[in-house]
């Protein structure tokens, strides 16, 4: 349902510390996502995971290559077009507003002002109490609360493809399991193709398939078991010798 064909993304100049130096962030990724499957994108910090997710949503436009969605070339489409076409996106650091309530966001996300339908979405997402609806989505919301808002507005879109960028950031440990269950339930019940960018093992275990991104390339695709040796390799600290020294020092990280 979603096909990435040799997509590349590079930045030049102003965004970079060294002007006019081009840095390639996504370096020729090709992949076919199947309808109704659950994918986890993982990899080291700075490997290009979030950038890849943003390229799919159109938040950044690819430098080269193409993106097909349900057989249609959406490479040049805006965020709006892609959203209207059935792609929804959950931001890692959700925007905070002034004067906007959760209800306001949910109304545009779901396209209905009907109280009953809005409450139904809250139930579907597992948000209570109901007075949460009229909370302002401003800087006073906690990290966990704003992530719930983000999740709810994504699910309220009834998307064909849902992308979640690190949905567990700022969420307490006890909430991660229900969140994984929610995304799995959405995937199974509505046949939502789901892509989760995460380091969290709970999401990696829930995924049908894993994409391991390293240096802007796919380093591995397949199940978690096959990825484990590479993941382990990536998590081994390369600074042991400098940090721990020769005697008695220990890494407490």
């Amino acid at each position, binding site marked *: 349902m979603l096909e990435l064909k040799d997509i590349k993304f590079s930045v030049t100049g102003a965004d970079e510390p060294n002007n006019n130096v081009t840095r390639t962030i996504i370096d020729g990724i090709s992949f076919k996502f199947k309808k109704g499957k659950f994918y986890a994108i993982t990899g080291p910090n700075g490997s290009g995971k979030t950038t890849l997710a943003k390229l799919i949503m159109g938040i950044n436009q690819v430098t080269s290559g193409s993106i097909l969605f349900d057989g249609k070339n959406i490479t040049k489409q805006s965020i709006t077009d892609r959203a209207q076409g059935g792609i929804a996106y959950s931001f890692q650091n959700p925007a905070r507003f002034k*004067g906007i309530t959760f209800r306001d966001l949910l109304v545009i996300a779901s396209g209905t002002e009907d109280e009953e339908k809005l409450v139904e979405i809250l139930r579907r997402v597992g948000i209570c109490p109901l007075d949460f609806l009229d909370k302002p989505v401003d800087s006073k919301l906690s990290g966990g609360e704003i992530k719930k808002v983000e999740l709810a507005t994504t699910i309220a879109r009834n998307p064909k493809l849902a992308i979640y960028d690190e949905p567990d950031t700022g969420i307490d440990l006890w909430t991660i399991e229900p969140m994984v269950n929610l995304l799995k339930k959405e995937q199974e019940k509505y046949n939502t193709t789901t892509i989760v960018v995460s380091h969290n093992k709970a999401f990696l275990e829930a995924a049908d398939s894993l994409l391991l991104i390293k240096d802007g390339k796919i380093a591995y695709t397949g199940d978690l078991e096959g990825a484990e040796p590479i993941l382990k390799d990536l998590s081994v600290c390369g600074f042991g010798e400098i940090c721990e020294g020769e005697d008695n020092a220990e890494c407490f990280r």
Partner: protein
Amino acid sequence: MLNALDKKLLKAVADLEEIPKGSYNIRKNGKLLGREISANIIIDTNKEGTGIVVTIKPGTVNESVHIPVIVSQTGLHDVVYNTFIVGENSDVTIIAGCGIHCGESKSLGHEGIHEFFVGKNAKVKYVEKHIAMGDGTGKRTLNPVTKVFMEEGSHVEMELTQLGGVDEANRLNEANLGTKSSLLVAERVLTDYQQVAVSKNEIVLAGQDSRANFISRSVIKGNSRQDFYATLEANARCFGHIECDAIIMDNGVNETIPALRAHHPDAELTHEASIGKIANDQLMKIMSLGLTYDEAVNWIIQGFLK
């Protein structure tokens, strides 16, 4: 008695479809158009004949008074002095506002100078909307002044709104807060084209345990300009906060100058101010919910000024 244009202006400034129920005073082109008083709210023309005195009896609860002004006579600059005497323990809503319609090339405007004397433990909600419309090229000016004197334990909420159409606005708000009184001001101003709006605010926290919260939201479009000054002066143990946010679009210009003056060791004064474009992450979020760029801008601005 009300023509179509009057109705349109009244609807815009006071949400009135018809002549309101309860007490009211409607002023059109510098003259009295209609007045109604109630048992508890008396409206008299002042001695000088330059405005009205609204007297609210002590203990008046759940009543409202409408005092809209409409100006459509070309070249007219209407100046009015209104005084509100709010009795102890009352709880009332005052709905003011001015609608200007300019159909020609001559300028026209309105200056409403309002003084409020709010008695002990009285609660007042004051809603004021300013709007200007019409195809004329004449300059539309609105220079409102509000002075509020608050006695012990009183509470005043002011909603001051000017959303478009006014070419020049010079606003002055002054408040003096007595012991345990509290004031909440929410000001929302949108300017566009070559419009200029200046808002000056002087709030004196005179009484012990008085509280003031001033919220200002500005949207500056086109080549317009808005200047915002707010001063909180504390002369007793008190709490005061100023929050002023401005969104700049196009070539808008904004100066925001909050000032805090603590003349008492137990004064607690804070302010936060921000000026900037609509944040990119907000636009991305709203577009990812299916709105176009322009729709997203509009939606964010409407929420900001709500």
